[in-house]
């Protein structure tokens, strides 16, 4: 805690708040930039809806990641879990299982993967990185087996509706993302388990000595993350109307990036849902905006990395001076 004195930045409360919210600013700057470039398009209802639709599933998976990152862990298996969940739901429906049962089964799969992660990390003391890297590998293998390496499709219409249906012309996944985010936010903020997660992320030993059931809490975090990721995977399958063993694999790293971007939003520097959503927003706006400007795919990738660095650096300015 010998971080720093803010002593030398006096009298500039506004400036400070701005720096603190560097990531938020980065998002605003990005939006402003793309709006300036294409005022006719960028902030239109259609395009905003577009962006939200595109990031809705990432938002859900990043929500799952936020939970475990509050504890100071990682879950590298969220993407794989979501993939497997989609595949399981798909395979069951194709086999004739009713939609609700198939979805429930997919969520149970997420629960099981999460439980395995939790047991490995909380009770067998494996580092979260290795444990979830290993489950990721196995889970993708299982997804290949479930899909037999092909892309499953031809799901019942009511299933696809979950991913493609609209209310007030806004796609359902956007609503789902909002609901899941609010739930996770409330879980983190208002519940005892959420408090314990924060405490564990702050200092495991202190938490343990204060009577927090550290192992159980960690187990819960990974389990919930598994279920949430599975839900994201089910939505992805419904959104695409198909399920394969590879789809959604980019969500793992993107979710970690979103959480990291979001961690810079609050003073304590902890993983937080609001920040994560800002991070998801940055990722979504960036990709949509660059597409709209017609930037070459490879250049887009270069720019994406640079923007992430700029966003985080901007918000890091506050802690830099020592």
């Amino acid at each position, binding site marked *: 805690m010998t971080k720093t004195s803010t002593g030398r930045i006096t009298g500039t409360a506004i400036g400070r708040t701005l720096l603190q919210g560097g990531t938020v600013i980065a998002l605003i700057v990005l939006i402003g930039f793309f709006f300036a470039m294409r005022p006719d398009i960028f902030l239109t209802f259609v395009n905003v809806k577009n962006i939200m639709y595109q990031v809705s599933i990432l938002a859900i998976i990043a929500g799952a990641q936020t939970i475990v990152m509050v504890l100071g862990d990682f879950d590298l298996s969220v993407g794989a879990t979501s993939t497997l969940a989609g595949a399981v739901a798909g395979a069951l429906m194709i086999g004739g299982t009713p939609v609700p049962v198939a979805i429930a089964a997919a969520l149970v799969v997420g629960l099981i993967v999460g439980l395995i992660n939790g047991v490995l990390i909380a009770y067998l003391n494996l580092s979260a990185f290795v444990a979830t890297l290993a489950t990721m590998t196995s889970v993708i293998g299982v997804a290949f087996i479930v899909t037999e390496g092909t892309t499953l499709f031809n799901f019942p219409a009511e299933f696809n509706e979950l991913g493609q249906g609209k209310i007030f012309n806004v796609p359902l996944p956007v609503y789902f993302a909002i609901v899941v985010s609010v739930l996770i936010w409330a879980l983190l903020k208002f519940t005892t388990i959420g408090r314990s997660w924060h405490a564990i992320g702050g200092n495991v030993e202190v938490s343990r000595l204060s009577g927090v059931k550290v192992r159980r809490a960690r187990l819960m975090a990974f389990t919930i993350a598994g279920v949430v990721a599975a839900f994201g995977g089910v939505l992805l399958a419904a959104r695409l*109307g198909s399920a394969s063993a590879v789809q959604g694999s980019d969500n793992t790293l993107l979710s970690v990036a979103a959480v990291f971007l979001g961690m810079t939003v609050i003073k304590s520097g902890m993983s937080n849902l609001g920040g994560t959503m800002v991070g998801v927003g940055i990722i979504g706006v960036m990709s949509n905006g660059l597409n709209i400007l017609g930037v070459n795919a490879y250049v887009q990738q270069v720019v994406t990395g640079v923007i992430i660095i700029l966003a985080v650096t901007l918000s890091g300015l506050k802690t830099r001076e020592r």
Partner: protein
Amino acid sequence: ASGGGEAEDKPFKVIAFTSGNQTPVGAWWVKAVTAKAEELGWELTMIQGDFDFQKMNPAVESAIAQGADAIFDGYTDYASISSITAAAADAGIPIFAMDSGVEPTDAFAINVTTDQQGIVDSTVEALSTQLGGLKGKNIMVIGHDPHAGIRERSGLAFDAFKAAGANLAGGEIQQVQSPATGRTEALALVADYLAANPNGLDAVWVGWDDAALGASKAITEAGSSAKVTGVDATSEAIAEIQAEGAFLATIEQPWPSILETVIGYMLEFQKTGSLPSSNFETVGTTLVDKVNAAKITPSDKL
């Protein structure tokens, strides 16, 4: 590794490898080659690379070092395996290949692949018919450069549309970064393009069906009337074509018959020790549209 033409008592030793075993066609190939080898009494070493050359190449080369009569490459571009082709050349073992790159190379005794120009001709033709000519039409081409076949045909398609007087959306071939996320990437590409250019798209030509399915979804969702073509004839694409939505047509590549052809060359080599006269052969493909869709065997159901 003295090649074919030897006594019947020693089994014919074949090393088969593919980097594409995680795709449905690749998985089919592994099974088909294994079954064929069984039937022909070959001693087969099958190596699957999961797109990881760092893992596959050494495995193949070490098999080469242990001796073989012939090598069979399925769906692995020769550019990625020059260490294998070098090792095979040193050991004097011929490589028989199918769909392993799109131009002739001395690295292979034979490479039988599909006629990329033919694929482009028939898909472009189908779009032209559907749209009533291509002149002034707005068309997006989506490709994926790391895949030699897709790169070749998307380049040809781009040229064909340009020649026909179409406007090419974005001015260049749109690239999908990773085949794993091809469908979602294509979906976002087309959705974003349509947001920026409502009614600005008449067609999307995509180099393979998985991504084409993302493009057709984006079109449907945006309420656009644009049409999409793909390549591969996956079951899903065929179903979409039959549903008569945005997905107009795809291409069936005759993998089983290509496999037969290559095996034929290998048997010839086994018997007589002679190699095919040309090292490159292309095979015609079939356009799959709503007319013949029902009769096509999907590539993932081979």
